[in-house]
């Protein structure tokens, strides 16, 4: 395991350096995050002007929900898919494939590097906003914070798997942008990133419940907000872990199948 990490951690380091070197993109994404969060906050302020509780969420909880979603989205956005689809479509994946490395692990360690930089800045932003906009005191007990931290990590891994799996679709189409966009819309709706799942009709919630997306966003927020506690929270962590294992394995199988179809344009 240590040997494995030593071989792959360079991808994390290089991605971080690259991300930091490219300051403009970095600043733009920080500003966009900020704007996105503020737009949501204002929207909810309008809605909460009429009612004090909407679908079981009060103002405080709803803003925290929005902030956690923003943190998760900033931590792992389009980048994994963009890199993957670009590599497949323009053939630059070729040089990765001539290396003695597992492609999926490589992608994961790259995503990790990206996320440490983006997630790090987003975390500062989100904590600042949470402190100014909400009352955090009910949520700051060590047990639920620890559970939440584990849940966030699992959510990150699952988000990676979903993005990676989506990106692999580019092996079968030349419309990379379409695939990425479609995946993003599906994920946003079913994961609860757009709205808490409680806002949707019962049949939709049942459907979302059997799909992996909710485990990447919705479930961690429920742990943080204390809406699911104790044994229920542990069950959620187990479910998240299960989805990570399932999606990681499926992606691996899919890659092994897909890589035989690759044509590598150019050269």
């Amino acid at each position, binding site marked *: 395991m240590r040997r494995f990490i*030593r*071989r*792959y*951690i*360079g*991808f994390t*380091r*290089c991605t971080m*350096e*690259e991300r930091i*070197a*490219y300051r403009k993109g970095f600043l733009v994404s920080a500003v966009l995050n900020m704007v996105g969060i503020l737009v949501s906050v204002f929207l909810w302020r309008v809605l909460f002007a009429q009612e004090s509780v909407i679908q079981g969420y009060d103002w405080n909880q709803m803003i925290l929900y929005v902030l956690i979603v923003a943190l998760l989205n900033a931590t792992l956005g389009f980048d994994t898919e963009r890199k993957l689809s670009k590599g497949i479509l323009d*053939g*630059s994946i*070729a*040089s990765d*494939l*001539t*290396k*003695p*490395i*597992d492609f999926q692990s490589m992608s994961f360690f790259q995503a990790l590097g990206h996320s440490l930089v983006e997630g790090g800045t987003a975390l500062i932003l989100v904590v600042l906003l949470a402190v100014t906009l909400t009352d955090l005191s009910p949520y700051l007990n060590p047990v639920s914070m620890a559970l939440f931290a584990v849940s966030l990590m699992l959510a990150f891994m699952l988000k990676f798997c979903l993005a990676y799996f989506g990106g692999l679709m580019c092996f079968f189409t030349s419309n990379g942008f379409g695939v990425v966009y479609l995946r993003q819309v599906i994920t946003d709706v079913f994961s609860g990133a757009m709205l808490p799942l409680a806002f949707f009709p019962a049949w939709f919630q049942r459907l979302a419940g059997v799909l992996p997306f909710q485990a990447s966003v919705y479930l961690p927020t429920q742990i943080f907000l204390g809406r699911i506690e104790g044994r229920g929270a542990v069950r959620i962590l187990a479910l998240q872990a299960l989805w990570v294992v399932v999606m990681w394995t499926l992606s691996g199988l899919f890659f092994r199948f897909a*890589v*035989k*179809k*690759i*044509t*590598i344009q*150019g*050269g």
Partner: protein
Amino acid sequence: MISVRKLTKEFKIPVKPPGMKGAIRHLIRGEYKVKVAVESVDFSIEQGEAVAYIGPNGAGKSTTIKMLTGILKPTSGEILVNGIDPQRHRIQNAKNIGVVFGQRTQLWWDIPVEESFALLKNIYEVPDAVYNENLKLFNEIFGLSEFIGRSARKLSLGQRMRADLAAALLHNPSTVFLDEPTIGLDIGTKEAMRELIQRINREKGVTIILTSHDLKDVEDICRRIIVIDGGRIICDKEISQLTKEYAMDRGLQITLLDMQKELPARLLGQEGISYAAMEDAHTLEIHFKPEMYTAFEIVEEVNKYARIQDFRLREPSIERMIEKIYRSGEQSA
């Protein structure tokens, strides 16, 4: 050691008639045209050989290299690289090979080149001693230390290609695939690239498979040539053997003021003249056996049928041998 048997690669190319109608028809019917890029290719290469794999654009060189490096699955046929099927055991195969695609880079664009190198060192688990020794060699030949601290984005093409070749050799691969590594480079960089490739081949016994349109690369580095055209191998010989067969002939290029149409055919009909054709409207290229004619006699002979403005002797070169191989390939095809 590389062995390739009956290797074939077909690409399915979607047939899309023009316009919206065509696009829809393609969606429904899904029509494809099959393009055979590599057709039933056979060869085997011993450890330590340096082989030039040459052919005109679209001949199937890159496609073959991609299959040998395991990133493209053959349609049929068999490849063994050091006893390993490179597609099925891609990762295991990758440990022993180095690859340069001249049209791409494997360096990270926005971070210093030395960081890319450090990453490769980790991936291949190169021991410090080997790594440092290699860097020393690359420094000596490439002057790598001048630009290793800069990001790939900020390098000239020549520097980038040096760094790319060095990156492919850091882990002491036993077999190196170079697909047009000198494309677009200035003479100085080309020389340096050739020197390094030559040295690892001669001193370390590394197998080299090189594609290039620059026959100076071929002459300097390789001892064997495999010529592919239209996906098929039309020649596979030691260069020394080729020289014996083709370069014995002398060549003259004669600029004519006027001429008779049937001149090349008439010359070709004579014994001892192996080749005669018009390069353009006024330039006659003629090859002859030196034991049968002197150059002066050839000029005299041509002078009977045409007014000569100028002539010059063409040195026997690999380039001309290849030209002839292509031509004879066309004739037999």
